[in-house]
C-alpha cells in the first residue's frame, strides 16, 4: 500500500494502480472516454489529463501508475483548461445532433460538454460529412460522424470475443471504424458494442428510436435465459398516463458482476426479452365451465387444497403428478420438494425444460433454463416425462410452465392429458396448452418476483422484482405457501414463510449447499 494525495485528499492504494482507479476508489471522478475497466488503458481520448506535482506536463490518469507521495490535482485551472481543449477537438468533428441521437441522456461526451464545454465554435471549416447509418453488425448501426475513435469496440472484439471483426482504417481525419471485406460483426456478444460505445457512434437497431433513454427506469435482475445467470439491468418504461405503450421492457443491459459475467452479457439474453410482455395471461381461467365465471385466488387455493386433501385421506397421493421446470426459483423448488415429496410422498415428479442450445466458452451455457443446478442441489431428480405412464397413473396433474411443447406435439399431449381427471397449469403465457387443462393459473415471471437462482457454477444469486406483476399474476412461492397452509398438514412450519428470504434461510439450515450462500 502506498499513500498518494488526490486533490489534497490522502488515499492509500495498492502499488500498481493507476491514478484513475485510485481516484475512483476515493470517489473522485476523472472524466474519461476511451478507458474501460475491462481493458488495459489505451490513452486515445486524452480526456483524463491530470496535473502531477513536479512534472512539467499533464499526464494521463488512465495509464499513469501511482508513486509514493504523489500529489495529483484533478481540478486545477490547467487541468480544466486542458479538458476544455480536448473537448473542443473532439467536438470539432462530432455533430451536435443529441436530440436525434439514441445515446443522448447516457452519453459521456454530452455530460462532459455540460460540465466543461459550452464554448463558442472557433472553427471556420465545416464539419466533415460522413455516413450516418451503415449496418456493420447483426444489430449494429454505425454513425461515423459521431465516432470519437476511442477504439473501445475494436478492443472488445480483440480481447473479449477474439473475433476482431472491426478495425480502424485510413489515417488522420479520414480514419474510421470499419469492417473488412463486408464481413459483418456477427458474434453472440455484438450487443455489448452498442453498450460500451461512449458516444452514439454504435447504436443498437433493436433499441434504436424506440424511446428515449431518460424515459426508462432500470432495475437489477438476473438473466434467466441460460444457466449462467448473468447479472442484468432490465430497463422498462413506466408508461404515460394517457397513452398505452406496446411494451414495458425496452432493453436489457449488462450489470457488472465479477463473480458471474464480468461486464458483458450475450445477445441471447440481451435481445430475448420479448417474452416478458408478449402473450401474457393475467387472469385465472377455468375451462369446461359455462360462462366466464371468475374465481378468486383464495377460493382457488382452497379448491386445490381440497382436491389434494381428498387424495391424501384415502392414501392415494401417488396419483398426483407434477411437471416442473427449472425456471422456478430455489425457494419454489424447495417448497415443492417439501410439500409434495416429503409431506405428501408424491413420486411422480417430472421435469420439462427448454431444449438445450448452443454454448460458447465465454458466458452462454447449453442449458436454457436458469436453475438446473439449484434443482439438483435441492435433491430433485430431473426425470423427463413419460407420457404413457403419466396418463395411466395420474388423477391430479400440476403442470408448471408450458415447456412440454418443446418435447411433444399437441396431439400427443392432448391424448395423454385426456385420461387425467384434473389438470392444472401454472402458466405465464397463453398458448394452446392452456386449452387442454382445466384450470390455468397466471404466474409472475422472474422479472416480477423475488427469489434466488443457482447458476451453473453453484453461485446462489438473489433477485428482486423489477416490474409490477400484472392483473392476477402471483409468484409461485406465494401460491405454494398458501396451498401448504391450506393443506393443514404442517401449518405452523409453513406459516413462517412470509417471504422468499425466510424460505432461503430455512433452506440454509436444511441443505448444506445453501448454507451461507444466500447472498
Amino acid at each position: 500500500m502506498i499513500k498518494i494525495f488526490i486533490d489534497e485528499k490522502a488515499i492509500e492504494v495498492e502499488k500498481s494502480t493507476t491514478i484513475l482507479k485510485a481516484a475512483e476508489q476515493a470517489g473522485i471522478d476523472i472524466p474519461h472516454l476511451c478507458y474501460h475497466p475491462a481493458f488495459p488503458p489505451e490513452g486515445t481520448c486524452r480526456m483524463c489529463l491530470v496535473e502531477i506535482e513536479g512534472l512539467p506536463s499533464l499526464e494521463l490518469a488512465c495509464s499513469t501508475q501511482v508513486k509514493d507521495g504523489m500529489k495529483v490535482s484533478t481540478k486545477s485551472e490547467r487541468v480544466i483548461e486542458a479538458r476544455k481543449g480536448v473537448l473542443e477537438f473532439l467536438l470539432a468533428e462530432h455533430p451536435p445532433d443529441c436530440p436525434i441521437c439514441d445515446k443522448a441522456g447516457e452519453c459521456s461526451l454530452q455530460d462532459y460538454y455540460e460540465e466543461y464545454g459550452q464554448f463558442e465554435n472557433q472553427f471556420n471549416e465545416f464539419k466533415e460529412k460522413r455516413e450516418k447509418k451503415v449496418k456493420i453488425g447483426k444489430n449494429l448501426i454505425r454513425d461515423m460522424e459521431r465516432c470519437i475513435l476511442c477504439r473501445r469496440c475494436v478492443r472488445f472484439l480483440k480481447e473479449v470475443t477474439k473475433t476482431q471483426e472491426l478495425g480502424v482504417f485510413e489515417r488522420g481525419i479520414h480514419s474510421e471504424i470499419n469492417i473488412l471485406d463486408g464481413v459483418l460483426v456477427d458474434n453472440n456478444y455484438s450487443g455489448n458494442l452498442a453498450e460500451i460505445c461512449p458516444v452514439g457512434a454504435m447504436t443498437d437497431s433493436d433499441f434504436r428510436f424506440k424511446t428515449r433513454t431518460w424515459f426508462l427506469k432500470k432495475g437489477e435482475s438476473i438473466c434467466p435465459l441460460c444457466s449462467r445467470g448473468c447479472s442484468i439491468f432490465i430497463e422498462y418504461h413506466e408508461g404515460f398516463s394517457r397513452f398505452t405503450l406496446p411494451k414495458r421492457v425496452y432493453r436489457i443491459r449488462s450489470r457488472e458482476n465479477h463473480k458471474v459475467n464480468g461486464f458483458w452479457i450475450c445477445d441471447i439474453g440481451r435481445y430475448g426479452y420479448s417474452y416478458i410482455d408478449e402473450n401474457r395471461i393475467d387472469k385465472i381461467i377455468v375451462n369446461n365451465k359455462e360462462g366466464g365465471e371468475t374465481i378468486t385466488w383464495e377460493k382457488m387455493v382452497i379448491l386445490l387444497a381440497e382436491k389434494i386433501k381428498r387424495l391424501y385421506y384415502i392414501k392415494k397421493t401417488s396419483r398426483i403428478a407434477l411437471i416442473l421446470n427449472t425456471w422456478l426459483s430455489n425457494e419454489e423448488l424447495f417448497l415443492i420438494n417439501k410439500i409434495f415429496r416429503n409431506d405428501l410422498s408424491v413420486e411422480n415428479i417430472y421435469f420439462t425444460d427448454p431444449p438445450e442450445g448452443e454454448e460458447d466458452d465465454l458466458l452462454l451455457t447449453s442449458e436454457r433454463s436458469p436453475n438446473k443446478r439449484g434443482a439438483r442441489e435441492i435433491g430433485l431428480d430431473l426425470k423427463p416425462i413419460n407420457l404413457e405412464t403419466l396418463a395411466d397413473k395420474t388423477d391430479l396433474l400440476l403442470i408448471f410452465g408450458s415447456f412440454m411443447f418443446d418435447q411433444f406435439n399437441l396431439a400427443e399431449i392432448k391424448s395423454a392429458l385426456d385420461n387425467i381427471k384434473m389438470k392444472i397449469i401454472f402458466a405465464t403465457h397463453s398458448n394452446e396448452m392452456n386449452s387442454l387443462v382445466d384450470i390455468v393459473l397466471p404466474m409472475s415471471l422472474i422479472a416480477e418476483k423475488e427469489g434466488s437462482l443457482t447458476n451453473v457454477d453453484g453461485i446462489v444469486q438473489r433477485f428482486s422484482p423489477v416490474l409490477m406483476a400484472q392483473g392476477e399474476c402471483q409468484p409461485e412461492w406465494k401460491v405454494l405457501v398458501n396451498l401448504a397452509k391450506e393443506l393443514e398438514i404442517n401449518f405452523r412450519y409453513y406459516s413462517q414463510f412470509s417471504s422468499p428470504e425466510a424460505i432461503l434461510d430455512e433452506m440454509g439450515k436444511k441443505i448444506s449447499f445453501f448454507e451461507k450462500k444466500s447472498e
Partner: protein
Amino acid sequence: MIKALGYFLEIIRGSIITTRHFVVNMHFHFMKLFRIKTKRKGAVTIQYPEEKREIATRHRSLHRLMTNKDGKPRCVACMLCVTVCPSECIYVEAAEDPDLEVQKYPSTFIIDLSRCCFCGFCVEACPEDAIRMDTGQIEFAEYSREDLIYNLEKLIG
C-alpha cells in the same frame, strides 16, 4: 380613526370612477342607438361570437406541426416535447427514415387536447421549430373527448 376614514374615501372614489364609466358608456350607447355617434363603441362588452377581439401576436392557440419544403413534417421525433409536457398529453412514436441522410421521423404524433394546458413548453423545447401554437384557433370544442385527440394529419393540415 383617520385610517378608517381613508378606506371610506377610497370606496367613494371607486364608486365615482365606476359611475363615470357607466354614465359615459351609456351615453355613447344611447347615441349609437339613435344613430348620432356611431363610430365610438358604446358598451365595453364585446358581442362574442359575432364580434371577436384581435388575438395578441404572442398568443398560444391550437398547435400545428410545420412541414419541410417536400411536405414531410419538420419534426425529427426527438421526443423533447413529450419529455417537457407537464400534462403528458403528447405521444410520439419514431421510425427509421429510409433516407440515409435523415435519422428518424415521427410515425405517430398525437396531442390529447382534452388534457393540454396550453403552457407552450413543447414549442419552447422543440429544437427544430417543428411545433407552433400560432394558428389563432381558440375554438375547437367537440362533442366527444375522442375528437380532441389530434393526430399527425390533423396537426399538419
